[in-house]
């Protein structure tokens, strides 16, 4: 998953980046509303972690702007305010969830998984196709009950494909979800990851659609 963190406190923002990367995700972070707007326009994110009080405006206004222009990216609000009113206002303006500061990193990760999952219309926490089970919370993959060890990137590629089995995901789309802004992308990185994945989870599961991308083969 690729997550945008909008938080102006440098220590918290750094902790969120490093902490959420431990969940195998790609994290981009910005410190204000204007930068967040630019980031949202430039790339697709699976979820946004949004602080309410930002130096150049309110997170609520950013949220309202997002929803007005039809951006449905799931948003989790981080609020340091106690008042129920603020939470209610946040949810009513289009937030999907909120957490009060200080929060638990594991809970934040779980909530992000939940809102990202709901967005794809899925209720089951684990992704399953033909004996292959991906558990995004535990970062584990099993094939016919046997655990398979994957690198972080390999897991991310598999998770993107498994989110919507049968749907073709382009190489650019997969790269987008895999790499943050500052990361160098080797031109054949996705091909290499898919090649390795096939060796680990089975040759036939991941299908190459020439010129378009990859998809998980679903039994007709």
């Amino acid at each position, binding site marked *: 998953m690729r997550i945008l963190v909008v938080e102006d406190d440098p*220590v918290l923002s750094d902790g969120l980046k490093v902490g959420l990367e431990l969940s195998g995700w790609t994290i981009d972070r910005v410190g204000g509303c204007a930068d967040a707007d630019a980031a949202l326009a430039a790339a697709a994110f699976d979820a946004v972690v949004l602080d309410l009080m930002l130096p150049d405006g309110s997170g609520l206004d950013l949220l309202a702007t997002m929803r007005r222009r039809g951006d449905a990216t799931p948003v989790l609000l981080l609020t340091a305010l106690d008042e129920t009113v603020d939470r209610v206002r946040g949810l009513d303006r289009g937030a999907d969830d909120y957490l009060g500061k200080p929060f*638990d990193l594991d809970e934040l990760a779980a909530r992000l998984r939940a809102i990202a999952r709901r967005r794809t219309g899925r209720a089951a926490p684990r992704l399953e196709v033909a004996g292959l089970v991906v558990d995004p919370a535990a970062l584990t993959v099993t094939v016919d009950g046997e655990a398979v060890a994957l690198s972080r990137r390999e897991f991310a590629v598999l998770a993107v494909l498994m989110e919507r089995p049968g749907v073709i995901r382009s190489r650019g789309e997969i790269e987008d979800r895999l790499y943050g802004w500052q990361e160098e992308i080797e031109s054949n990185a996705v091909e290499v990851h898919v090649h390795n994945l096939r060796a680990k989870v089975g040759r036939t599961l991941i299908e190459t659609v020439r010129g378009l991308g990859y998809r998980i083969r679903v039994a007709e």
Partner: protein
Amino acid sequence: MNSLRRRLFLLLLAATGAVWLCAVGWIYLGSRAELEHVLDARLQEAARMVHSLVAGGNITGRAEPLPPPGTGYERQLACQIWSLDGELVARSSGAPNASLAQDTEGFADRRMGDELWRVYTIVDPAKGVRVAVGDRIGLRDRLVRGLVGGLVTPALLIAPLLGLLIWLGLGRGLRPLNAVAGEIAARDGEDMRPIAPGDAPAEVRPLISAINGLLGKVEVARRHEREITAFAAHELRTPLAGLKTQAQVALATTDAAGRDRALGQIIVSVDRTARLVSQLLALARLEAMPDARSEARVNAGTALREAISAAGAAAGHVIEIDPVLEGMEVPGDPECLHLVLRNLHENAVRHTPAPGRIRWSALPGGEGLAIDDDGPGVPGGELEHLTSRFFRGSGGASGAGLGLTIARLAAERLGARLAIANREGACGLRSSVTWR
């Protein structure tokens, strides 16, 4: 309890009572004078009547009294006829044996035994008789008392009813006050809406508008306090969230470098939070402090050196202090002065990239001091917000936005004024403190 209703009730009752007493006194005196007049006329008339009945000196009356009449009032008049040589010719029943008559003609008060009489005497030398008609003054007084009593008794009986009516009327008249009191009493501590004057009478309106004014002031103060609490909560919880997240990262990370990095971040955050807490406390102290103007004079150079060393070592900045400041004395509380100087210095250091120059100088005429930095300055539109609480500006400053607020408040407490402007002809900011 000092009740307005009881007070008005007693006042009204006393005033009504006083008016009544005056009326009774007036009626008493007036009736008595009128009665005296009528009764005197009756005496005179009776005396003349008896006198005309007496034939020219040859009457031989019996000196026995007539049979007594029925009521006390009927026996009111007594009549005596005396011969001029002092012999009682005739008398009416109830008339005393002693002579009522006097030597001269006309009215007189006479004491007979223990009773006072009012007597009218006619002396007729031609007929050789003296006719005296009198009545008891005691009886006259009884008449007057009866008359006044007849007026006062019903009034006294009505008095409790009048009191009740006054009491009820007051209750009704004071109802608008009770309505206002009831509305205020029914509110909880949160409700600061102004009281609707409704159809309150003109006398109650000033009270309502005064209370509304007070409610407005309290509401402003409360909103201000809530704002500060909310900001403080935000400013403290965010670093706490950072600390917790970094601690969890340190726990979850398997490699040593990652753990060290997280622990380093924790130390940075603890230092910043400690600074923030002391700033919040300074802010709270300054806001509660009314005025710190004092006769004490502080050496600016010494105060400045202390403030600069408290602000911590500057990373490669060039710090210049105008030598004039060494000999300059400024008035005011040393602690407030320290807050002003330290926060201005920290602000300058924070916004000046090393190796920038920071210069403290005395204002012309010794009316204050100023600090210039080499930083980027501040966009014109943000200048006026610089000293607002928690204002951080768009420059991406790392502080909590409290330093300049504290400097401004502390300067005000010193009786000085903090002015911040972009430097003319150079980049950077100039903050000056001027004593008025």
